[in-house]
């Protein structure tokens, strides 16, 4: 009995060590990041921009945050993605803007944000913010009208009152935030100044987002708890938890190789990545255990259509390759169903009219931020210089590639036998020897499977031909010569690409959009162009050190009403704070 107890204890110990190792290796504390998503408003009209801020945090008080890519998507309650973007993060988070397509129908939508690592924890742990978006031509606003008819107990109190009642400006026992304005009331196109006073220990740092918006554009009942979700442990439920790697530098393109017959994962398959290019490049990786593979989409590969091909396993298996859709995992959400205050539909209608005026005057309040860092682009060259470059335009026009090879490429031998084209390349390092196996062929940087397209090339179609007719090594791949052809005009690669192949849409980082405010000079004040901004001020990221006061200013527009300065921030220690200040614009 005692012996059995010892055995069981030891096995339990082993399991414990395993679980600890799993936690330590697959998800160290720094990797268990979480996101808090903040937007300038809660209600928009299709055709406007949503300005957002992503605060990155983790269970380690924001120390060692390593995710550099976040995914942000706008979706319907049914889980249908409207827009999805990749956002670049720094050690605190990221920001940007999303244009709401004019064709969106009125209704509730959710903006979700997550990192790849958060995908491991499931949709419920993603940062989420519910928004209401109205189509600017939807006069009926049925979605809101139905809500207004709800029983009176479900009707939410006017949010201005709830904001005014939030007089406690203490964030935590040691941090206090005050918003001090130079006036309680402003006129049309008047400059307003305010000061943020954060009383906190000098060791603290606050990361703050500031917005000045109409009070009626904030619907606190839509997002009653805007805290980041509970930081969950990465599920150790099977190997699925480990499939999605972390994006600490570049976005990743991940996928899986499986056997077509039984969908069993296939390990060790070389997956090749190519893009249309004026250089001969190649990127490859091998599927690991469970069939997963991953490519880092560095600046060279970003913004390009990607073509994936894979090597035949050499047996009777037929392989399938699937790409991980990082926007697929977002899931559904339940739209708001409670009552609303009668002033809400009136405000939404007014916002629709405001946007119509903005569109009529072509007013744009978003600017793409110019990046001051120059991206270093390093092509994944297969070779730096070809042995030979042939320019067919220097010779008499020739009608097909076989003739071109025969007349001007003596290092290439092309034969046709039993309906198949065969090619051999002369080994430059020998006098007369041709390689016994065919060369690798590329057209405009893409691998060639079907040579028929190439054989139809005339001299006029080809810009130049590169020959690397030496035994060549690239990583663990060996080539008996490389033939690379570049055409004068763009070519549909489908006919010549090896079968099967997967085409992946360009992966690009969403350029950060900044709120642009016209200069508040005298000339502008007298201008006839209406200044119908709903968002008077947006500063997505301000870092305030302990014991420091920060001053800001903005100018009002041509829309009167009650406005709110909203301050949302996160301390260095990961605590979230929210503060607001109400003022009026009287025309």
């Amino acid at each position: 009995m005692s012996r059995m107890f010892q055995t069981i204890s030891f096995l339990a110990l082993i399991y414990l060590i395993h679980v600890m190792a799993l936690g330590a290796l697959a998800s160290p504390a720094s990797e268990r990041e979480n996101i808090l998503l903040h937007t300038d408003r809660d209600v928009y009209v299709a055709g406007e921009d949503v300005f957002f801020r992503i605060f990155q945090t983790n269970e380690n008080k924001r120390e060692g945050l390593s995710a550099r890519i976040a995914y942000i998507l706008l979706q319907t309650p049914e889980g249908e993605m409207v827009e999805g973007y990749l956002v670049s993060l720094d050690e605190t988070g990221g920001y940007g803007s999303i244009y709401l397509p004019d064709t969106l129908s009125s209704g509730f939508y959710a903006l979700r944000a997550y990192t790849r690592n958060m995908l491991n924890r499931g949709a419920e742990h993603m940062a989420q913010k519910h928004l209401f978006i109205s189509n600017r031509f939807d006069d009926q606003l049925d979605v809101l009208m139905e809500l207004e008819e709800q029983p009176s107990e479900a009707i939410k109190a006017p949010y201005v009152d709830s904001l005014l009642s939030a007089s406690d400006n203490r964030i935590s026992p040691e941090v206090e935030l005050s918003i001090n304005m130079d006036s309680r009331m402003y006129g049309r196109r008047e400059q307003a100044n305010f000061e943020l006073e954060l009383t906190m220990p000098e060791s603290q740092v606050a990361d703050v987002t500031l917005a000045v918006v109409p009070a009626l554009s904030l619907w606190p009942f839509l997002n009653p708890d805007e805290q980041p979700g509970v930081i969950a442990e990465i599920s150790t439920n099977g190997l699925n938890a480990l499939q999605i790697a972390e994006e600490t530098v570049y976005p990743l393109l991940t996928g899986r190789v499986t056997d077509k017959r039984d969908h069993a994962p296939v390990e060790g398959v070389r997956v090749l990545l190519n893009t249309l290019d004026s250089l001969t490049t190649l990127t490859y990786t091998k599927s690991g255990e469970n069939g997963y593979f991953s490519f880092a989409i560095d600046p060279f590969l970003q913004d390009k259509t990607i073509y994936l091909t894979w090597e035949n396993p050499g047996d009777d298996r037929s392989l399938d390759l699937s790409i991980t859709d990082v926007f697929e995992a977002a899931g559904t959400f339940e739209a708001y169903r409670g009552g609303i205050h009668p002033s809400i539909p009136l405000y939404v209608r007014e916002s629709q009219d405001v946007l119509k005026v903005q569109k009529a005057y072509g007013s744009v309040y978003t600017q793409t931020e110019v990046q001051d860092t120059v991206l270093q682009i390093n092509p994944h060259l297969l070779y730096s210089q070809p042995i030979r470059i042939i320019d067919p335009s220097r010779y008499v026009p020739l009608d097909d590639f076989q003739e071109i090879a025969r007349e001007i490429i003596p290092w290439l031998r092309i034969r046709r036998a039993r309906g198949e084209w065969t090619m051999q390349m002369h080994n430059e390092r020998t006098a007369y020897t041709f390689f016994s196996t065919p060369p690798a062929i590329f057209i405009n940087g893409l691998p060639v499977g079907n040579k028929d397209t190439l054989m139809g090339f005339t001299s006029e179609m080809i810009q130049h031909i590169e020959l690397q007719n030496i035994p060549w090594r690239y990583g663990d791949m060996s080539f008996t010569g490389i033939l690379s052809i570049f055409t004068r005009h763009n070519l549909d690669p489908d006919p010549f690409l090896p079968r099967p192949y997967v085409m992946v849409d360009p992966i690009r980082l969403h350029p950060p959009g900044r709120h642009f405010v016209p200069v508040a000079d005298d000339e502008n004040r007298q201008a006839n162009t209406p200044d119908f901004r709903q968002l008077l001020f947006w500063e997505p990221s301000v870092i305030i050190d302990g014991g420091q006061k920060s001053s800001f200013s903005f100018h009002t527009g041509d829309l009167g009403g009650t406005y709110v300065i909203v301050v949302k921030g996160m301390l260095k220690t990961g605590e979230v704070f929210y503060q607001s200040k109400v003022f009026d614009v009287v025309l």
Partner: protein
Amino acid sequence: MWYYKFRSLRTNVGIGKSVIFALPLFLLFIKPVMSQAVSNSEYHHHRALAGEIISPVIRYAGSPYLFEQWSSGEVILRSGAVIQVERIRYDGLSDVLLWLTPDDNSHVAVDKGLIQGFHMRHPQRDDVLFFYMNDLLEEPPLDCEQCFVQLLETGSFSLYARRSIRATSRTENVVFGGESHQMRLLANDFTFYLSTPDGNTFRIRPDRRSFTRVFSDYPRETRQAVRRIGRQVGGESDLVHAVRDLNALYASDPALFD
């Protein structure tokens, strides 16, 4: 030895059977986790070493390599990605980096247009040698486009070496394939270059006179200080030490070299 320890554990300690049973289980559990953790770090850069597969032929007497033995090291690609390699060696005759592929032992002359340089472990000493492409250095010491230069000391004053091996006019008999062949003899042709803070580069020999001559146009005080440093220079390692001392002197009194 391991078997003996295992046996003793099994007979003397009560949990021996558990160890036998649980160890493979533990390894089974831990392996996928470890492999994943390793592969995560490899995602950040694309890395593949490229070059021509060559067949070494004996054309000269003597070795064309800086060291006959292969040694481990790392190759720095132009992208900045670093590839750890088990077996590399530098061919001073052809000025190429050779890579012995791990799978089929092919000799690959690494494409110089794709790399920034390489760091190679000294096969005899506990030391690492730093080689870079001359044209990629901030102030290229040599007048050649794609040649390797070894960085011996870096600072305000930097010392470089070109590790050339050249065929001399002397010949020697070499026996291979059962026959004796008379072949030209290879000899080291190492040259050293000192770059100064004002951006000039001087070709120097590893001796006292050549070292002090670089500073012949400087004021008397500087020349004296340099002479003190260069007193011991009588070989390559002395030269490296002297440049190190020169950097220390410059750090303490830069005006001396104005």
